[in-house]
């Protein structure tokens, strides 16, 4: 039989519209309902704008020599102290040295440049950020972020380092750290760059460590309590307000290692588990020891659990556990071991890891360990 000529074949093919119709598309109301339910609101859009950088980086087309000269100038500029307005406390007000203006307690003002409240507290406001000074004394200061975003930096070795920032119903208290608070209406974002902060809201406290960020827009939603968090009103630890909080051991590595790990995570998104595993192995082989190597090793174990049969993954998990008792991920990796053993139908052996998680793990880990125990029949 002769095949149809191409023109005739094309004429017989259904059009796009006909094909779409055959596929029973969502009805108009279904589509509107689903599209409306997932459409971003104006508030969300404003919050997004507040989170975006002020400007895009330009790509230089300068000649390499000129680039080098620019780099040298940049280095000099970077080494110079940043222009910061220093404010000194006075009864009931701060005196801002740059213009000798007073910032009385209770007054709201838009800051247009970096400000040092003391030798140990710095504020870098975003444009149009508005703050109100609520209290200041020799120990520190209490500020309200009325609107916009500002980054706060506290030197744990300086005097007067107790800083509290109120943003709506959220209060961030810090001793020795760098963090950013953004506020748009009732929505508040807190992001911690270094150290650790306590966030209090509606009678509950949670701590955020370096690299962590949280949003609390809904006034009625209380903060989940951290493990060991004290309810507001409980007697504070006598040294809590005075001691710098040690930065967490996990993600505060050298910038270079952090960049390379972030780039690796980007690549992993595209890779199947086996290829991702090879990438992490290569990264670990090249990486100097640092806080991220622990995270990378645990990440590797997870990939291994995904890519390999349980027995193969288990041998690496057990090797890691044998030498990593001090790692903060120790109970978590024990949970992984229990899950792999359960998968391998070796529930008797899983019991020891479940016991470790129950003894050392957070509430969330303990719940998961309980689920593994239940899957093992008790």
């Amino acid at each position, binding site marked *: 039989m002769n095949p149809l000529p191409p023109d005739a074949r094309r004429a017989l093919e259904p059009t796009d519209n006909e*094909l*779409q119709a055959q*596929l*029973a*598309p*969502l*009805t*108009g*109301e*279904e*589509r509107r*309902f*689903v*599209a*409306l*339910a*997932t*459409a*971003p*609101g104006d*508030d*969300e*859009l404003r*919050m*997004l*704008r507040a*989170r*975006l*950088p002020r*400007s*895009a980086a*330009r*790509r230089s087309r300068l000649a390499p020599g000129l680039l080098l000269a620019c780099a040298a100038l940049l280095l000099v500029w970077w080494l110079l102290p940043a222009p910061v307005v220093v404010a000194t406390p006075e009864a009931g007000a701060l005196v801002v040295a740059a213009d000798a203006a007073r910032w009385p307690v209770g007054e709201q003002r838009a800051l247009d440049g970096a400000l040092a409240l003391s030798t140990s507290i710095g504020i870098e406001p975003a444009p149009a950020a508005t703050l109100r000074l609520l209290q200041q004394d020799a120990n520190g200061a209490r500020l309200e972020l009325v609107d916009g975003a500002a980054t706060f930096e506290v030197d744990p070795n300086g005097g007067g380092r107790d800083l509290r920032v109120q943003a709506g119903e959220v209060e961030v208290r810090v001793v020795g750290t760098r963090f950013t608070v953004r506020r748009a*209406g*009732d*929505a508040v*974002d807190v992001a911690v760059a270094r150290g650790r902060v306590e966030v209090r809201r509606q009678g509950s406290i949670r701590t955020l460590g370096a690299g962590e*960020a949280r*949003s609390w*827009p*809904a006034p*009625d*939603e209380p903060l*989940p309590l951290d493990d060991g968090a004290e309810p507001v009103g409980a007697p504070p630890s006598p040294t809590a307000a005075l001691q710098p909080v040690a930065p967490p051991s996990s993600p505060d590595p050298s910038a270079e290692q952090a960049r390379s790990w972030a780039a690796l*995570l*980007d690549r*992993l*998104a595209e890779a199947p588990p086996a290829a991702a595993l090879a990438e992490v192995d290569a990264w670990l082989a090249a990486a100097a020891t640092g806080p991220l190597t622990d995270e990378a090793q*645990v*990440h590797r174990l*997870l990939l291994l659990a995904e890519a390999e049969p349980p027995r193969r993954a288990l041998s690496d998990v057990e090797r890691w556990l044998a030498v990593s008792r001090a790692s903060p991920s120790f109970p*978590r*990796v024990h*949970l992984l071991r229990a899950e792999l053993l359960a998968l391998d139908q070796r529930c008797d052996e899983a019991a020891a890891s479940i016991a470790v998680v129950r003894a050392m*793990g*957070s*509430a*969330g*880990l303990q719940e*998961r360990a309980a689920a593994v125990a239940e899957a093992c029949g008790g």
Partner: protein
Amino acid sequence: MDDLSPAGAGDDAVDRLYRAHGRQVLAWAIRLGGPQLDPQDIAQEVFVVALRQIARFRGDAQATTWLYGITRNVVRNARRVAWLRRLVGWEGQPEPVHPGVASDEAIDLLQRRRAVQRALDGLGAAQREALVLCDLEERSAPEVAAMIGAPVGTVYSRLHAARPAFRKRLLREGIAPLAEADNVVPLRRPQ
């Protein structure tokens, strides 16, 4: 098309990108990211990557297609990391992300959004993106094929599989589909 060419990259590129595409990128983040991820985080990351790459944007593709490609990668990465973290309990139950106000209307909208996100989340990634781009955003199959770099026939076959699966999951979430013939019964919202 928006001026996103290298010559257009500069100090107000952020504003131009945000004004032209902010709502769209945020909508993709909500629809493709699912209930476990913060759409603000995803959209922010998309813009950060876009601004980093804007000088390399050659303008021979639609800006929407270019941004969708970035969104797709960011979402895939975020979903994977979230999955890995949940696997060993690094993150407990996901914290709900709120639109910013807590009026009854906002809570109602949030509940509906969560239900739809869970229904979308039950689809595979390929089916989810076909359904979102074709049905929710009413793009033509050839346009979607160009955006995702797949043949038009593939888009149709994914849609074919996605629609009944999505309806079934909407029902499971308590959202009843309309009567087939006449569109008189309003969609029920989840209780």
